[in-house]
């Protein structure tokens, strides 16, 4: 999964005759994995489907980077298992009450409702969404 793709930060253009003055300043290449994946062993990719999290910046078709080694805390966006299905929600904890809240666009407010996590609900947290990657070139 974490095949390294090295992209040079500064690329000196090949000019006949003179070496680029920047060539001496190339320090290292940037690997996007370093930035996006803190713990590769516990990181999984998922595809978001639907619009209930658009307000939080997660759109239909976005690529989610999910880290299972992060302990979920108040305010995290999480993958939750609700009745056996994988869903994306924001986790909110108020005192002893925890709930999973959808975060749609303003226009869709009221279309979705929060779910309380309690003894009687069949809910577990699968992992914490660390990043959402949105393709700006084309959407599905």
């Amino acid at each position, binding site marked *: 999964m974490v095949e390294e793709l090295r992209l040079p930060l500064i690329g000196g253009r090949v000019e006949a005759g003179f070496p680029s003055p920047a060539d001496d300043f190339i320090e290292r290449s940037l690997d996007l994995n370093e930035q996006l994946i803190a713990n590769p062993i516990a990181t999984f990719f998922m595809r978001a489907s639907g619009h209930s999290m658009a307000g939080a910046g997660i759109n239909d078709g976005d690529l989610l980077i999910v880290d299972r*080694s992060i302990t979920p805390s108040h305010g995290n966006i999480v993958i939750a298992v609700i009745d056996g299905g994988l869903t994306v929600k924001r986790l909110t904890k108020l005192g002893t009450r925890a709930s999973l809240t959808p975060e749609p666009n303003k226009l869709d407010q009221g279309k979705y409702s929060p779910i309380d996590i309690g003894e009687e609900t069949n809910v577990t947290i699968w992992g914490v969404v660390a990043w959402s990657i949105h393709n700006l070139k084309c959407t599905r």
Partner: protein
Amino acid sequence: MYALADCNNFYASCERVFEPHLEGKPLVVLSNNDGCVIARSQESKDLGFKVGDPIFTCKDVVRKHNVIVRSSNFALYGDMSRRVMQTIRLFSPDVEVYSIDEAFIKLDGLAGRNCEKVMRQMRAAILQWTGIPVSVGIGHTKTLAKLANHYAKKHIETGGVASIPKNPDAMLQCTQVEDIWGIGRQWSKKLRNIGVNTALDLASMDKESIRRSFNIIAMKTAMELRGHTYFRLEQAPEQRKTLLRSRSFGKPVESWHELSEALASHATRASEKLRNENLVAKMLHVFFHTSLFNRTDPRNSAHATVELIPPTNVTHTIIKAALNAAKPMWKGGFRYKRAGVQLIDLSSGPVQCSLFDSPEEQSKNKRMMVLLDGVNSSMGAGTLHFAATGFTKVMQMKQLQKSPRYTTDWNELPECLCGL
């Protein structure tokens, strides 16, 4: 001190990580080509499914109990196994990966820290990070670690981690001989005949008499039960001696054309594996046969072994040898169900040239194989292949119930709903 970490119902657990709705339901995973049961969830074990059951004989139970049936998804299991093993290595550098779902761990590096506590932390990390539940057994020897692991699996109150206690008699007493690591079915029968029923019985037997009536391995096993180390961590994998590539056909094969393509693709995959491990083969065994279960069709089976001179790992040489050996055995009028190629007597030594072999030919072949492997690894397996393996794809596996390759293919990622 050794520990054995063993994933619980590994294949079934992998399926459940990405499909939590399968939790608590009976699930079986089938062999390549959807033939036999190779793995079971606890619920399907409880229903009486056994490893090796042909799935068509279980249709009624499957229907009656809504058993989930899955084709094997080795891309997924392999990736999850890698994650589990990498997590284990964070806790101790001395790890022997014993199988896809089991590893022995040497705990001597923990220097006085509470082994059981550390193993509980490891178990919790594996469960949280990968979603795979494991059981851990801890003991002075590998045999005792394996025994403690068995105990941990059987007793929920251990929380999945058990150590051999200071006085191990009670734990040894409740372990049947069949469940001791390294004691097979034959030996268990023989042991029971002489009144040895539990691990404690075996541990208290006289050392020399075990050696006389069984062999040195049985004696070492008994000594390991007493806490004396005989089996050490094997970190460098032993060099393989043989390499088998075989598979049942999705639908029966009735023409030489189809059979030869199947054999050629087995030969191709076996040669690739050889090159991958820098080995050459001295002998080749080729076989094909009709169904073992179908009692109405006429039966036939054929096999032959040939020498490869000089020893080789060159794809086209191995294809040619396999087809030359199989062609004279071909008989029409049968519905063949399975075929395979086995490479035997493998070595990594330098290839001895025979009298009639030109070094130019060898170096040409070698360059061709480097090119072939390079293209196939960068552009996908099978991009470049020999025409003998054909274009009809008889060998495409019948895998009707395969789950997506959730962790190894961009097009098959798990989908999470933003819709509730």
